[in-house]
């Protein structure tokens, strides 16, 4: 039923994460096998479930982004704005109106900034009167603050959308962006997801993961420039988005395993890729005794039984970045696409992701041919 159109192309990306800021730094860190875990115990006054996390404890909004317009940014907004600037630059897209009139932004989140919302709410209880809150911080309590501030920073007057999708949020954003391009709503889309580390997220995540373990968490902002094919000769395509699928199911682990399997099958079908032709699978991963992790691994075992494709689990070194998890996974795919170790030339990669409550996402990417790729590393 779907119209036959060429898959959109990722023409650049930006990342701010414990493994590196910017595509080059992150790529180098991934291929080196760097570990992003640091001591995060001094970041907040509130107690935390564990001392280590894959975070940027020294990330300073004013230092990175200047004073102008940044006074009300929360951490999530700062990370997102920074990553978007890097993505625009990497893609060679303009970062000034009026050329950005139909450049859109779609950002995947879990709860926006849970810390901003909870701290705003806390003030209603701790002040003499519940309404004695700081009105300048009210927008940060809504989910779409980071996307709105990012648009202001770069003059992005196209679509501006915020999605709430948990760990698959970056895949939801890619799907939304693909639809926007297909429907003629934008000339280019910046799509991805972001998550900040905070005491709220750290404590809540123990329940979201379902096992009460204080696992290694992370934070990251990941944004990808998506443009319709073909992109001009002056632009460098990094990957084709062959398919991105989202499905919903029941929340028990048996159902989750079947749901993610079904989702991957659909994505591979739409991408017209056989399971044995997948060269790289990037999952979030997590503790081996986590039922969610097991469910996903079992599904992949059924789907890709004998293939010797490369596997990469991002949570081991980048932390579980919650809403940004699938974004970090895609960034890891793009890092591997820069490596001559990954063959063939038009390698195919699969990203899978589990939502909190039985939803799943899967996306299939193919490396764009690039004569320079063999010389890059």
């Amino acid at each position, binding site marked *: 039923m779907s*119209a036959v159109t060429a898959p959109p192309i990722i023409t650049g990306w930006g990342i701010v994460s414990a493994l590196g800021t910017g595509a080059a730094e992150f790529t180098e860190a991934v291929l080196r096998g760097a570990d992003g875990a640091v001591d995060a115990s001094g970041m907040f006054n*509130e*107690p935390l479930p564990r001392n280590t996390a894959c975070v940027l404890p020294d990330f300073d909004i004013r230092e990175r982004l200047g004073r102008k317009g940044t006074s*009300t940014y929360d951490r999530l907004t700062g990370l997102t704005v920074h990553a978007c600037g890097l993505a625009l630059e990497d893609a060679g897209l303009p970062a000034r*109106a009026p050329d950005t009139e139909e450049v*859109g932004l779609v950002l995947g*989140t*879990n*709860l*926006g900034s849970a810390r901003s919302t*909870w701290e705003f*709410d*806390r*003030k*209603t*209880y701790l002040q003499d009167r*519940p*309404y004695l*809150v*700081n*009105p300048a911080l*009210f*927008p940060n*309590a*809504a*989910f*779409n*603050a980071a996307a*709105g501030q990012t*648009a202001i920073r770069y*003059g*992005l*007057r*196209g679509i*501006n*959308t*915020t999605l*709430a999708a948990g760990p698959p949020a970056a895949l*939801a954003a890619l799907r*939304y962006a693909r*639809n*926007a391009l*297909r*429907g003629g*709503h934008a000339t280019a889309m910046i799509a991805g997801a972001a998550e900040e580390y905070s*005491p*709220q997220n750290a*404590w*809540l995540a*123990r*329940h*979201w993961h379902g096992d*009460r373990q204080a696992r290694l968490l992370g934070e990251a902002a990941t944004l990808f420039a998506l443009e319709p094919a073909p992109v001009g000769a002056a632009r460098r395509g990094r990957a084709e988005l062959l398919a991105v699928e989202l*499905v*919903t*199911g029941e929340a028990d682990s048996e159902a989750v395993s079947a749901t993610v399997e079904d989702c991957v099958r659909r994505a591979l079908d739409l991408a017209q890729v056989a399971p044995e032709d997948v060269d790289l699978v990037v999952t979030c991963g997590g503790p081996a005794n986590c039922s969610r992790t097991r469910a996903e691994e079992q599904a992949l075992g059924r789907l890709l039984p004998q293939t010797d494709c490369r596997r990469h689990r991002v949570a081991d070194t980048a932390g579980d970045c919650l809403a940004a998890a699938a974004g970090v996974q895609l960034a890891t795919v793009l890092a591997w696409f820069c490596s001559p170790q990954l063959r063939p030339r038009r390698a195919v990669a699969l990203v899978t992701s589990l*939502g*909190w*409550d039985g*939803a799943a996402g899967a996306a299939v990417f193919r490396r764009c041919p690039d004569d320079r790729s063999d010389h890059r590393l």
Partner: protein
Amino acid sequence: MPRRVVITGVGPVSPIGTGVRAFTDALRQGRCGISELTGPEFADFPTRYAGAVTDFDPSSTVERLAPDQWGRTSLLGSAAARLAVRDAGLDPARIPRHRAGVSMGTTGGESRLVDQGTAQWIGKGLDHLDPGLAHQLPASRMAEAVARELGWTGEAMTIASACAAGNYAVGYAYDVIAHGDADYMIAGGADSLNRWGYAGFYRLGAMAARACAPFDRGRDGMLVAEGGAAMLLEPLESARTRRAHIYAEVLGYGLSCDADHMVAPNSTGMATSMRRAHRQAGVEAGEIDYICAHGTGTPSNDAAEWRAILDVFGNSPPPTSSVKSMLGHTMGAASAFGVLACAVGLAEGFMPPTAHHQQTDPGLPHLDPVPGRGRPARLNRVQNNGFAFGGNNAITVLGRVE
């Protein structure tokens, strides 16, 4: 060639009524759903008027969800979705479930659970949060709740673009069906009244003392509200094959971002989204018979919105009313209620009115706010406006199907 997409079922759970019959009657009569909040979380506010769904009983409507496992916002949306499929005469179990999905808009998600969680944080610390509360908190559950309620396995997209999210959700569902990714979509929005949202709007000086009177000379603000609004969208062809009642066709939508200020209304950005919607829907401004305004009732929104409308429509804009005068501002559900009101108006031949209207603001020239009660009219093309924090603007265009 994209498929034509129609609305064949509507499900309102609102301060002015639940179910299409009660909602339509109230809409036509211009009945007001504002009441005084009695909950202890609102006791310390000087004024406490809002649009509450005081009679909401999820267990009387939802069939598959266990109400104690889901937050109020998810339940408002799921109840609305259940009503929409019933209204459409569709048995959700009898369609290919992987071809059916959900897109739901929200501003605050499970905002009421944030109130409870914050109280636990203050009382016992973050390390003692109730696991059930934590589990129910993620906003992605809003769309997933609807999918689970209907037993559907297609995509469940929660769009969190604040107070324009309902229009975003309808637009997204339209694209998904038009291009063949799914055959049925529930699209809508939901939000719950909560303490922090009330505090924020109160502190911004945006809240009316007693009544929401959009476009009125004496208007003094908005009133926050809650509710769930859902619609069933499907291809025109399948609706005709199964002889469904068709409310309206979704002709298209347009989105824009002000990229200017986080909260101040911006008429340039609003006008851009209207022009994009008209272009995408293939209509001229002059063909629009009625506008369902964002119309919050704040002096600044209504003035900016009217400037945008005059910019796009010239000096003969169509009648323009605000259903927020009756419902209050239902946040992420607001523009979904707007689409729903437009759909009902197209099908039943009336323009929804602006309640509480005494004297039109002389600063809003050429405005016909459809004061008081609904006005009988044969509508062909209508437009629904939604604007939000973050400079997020979203417009949908609907048409009548013969």
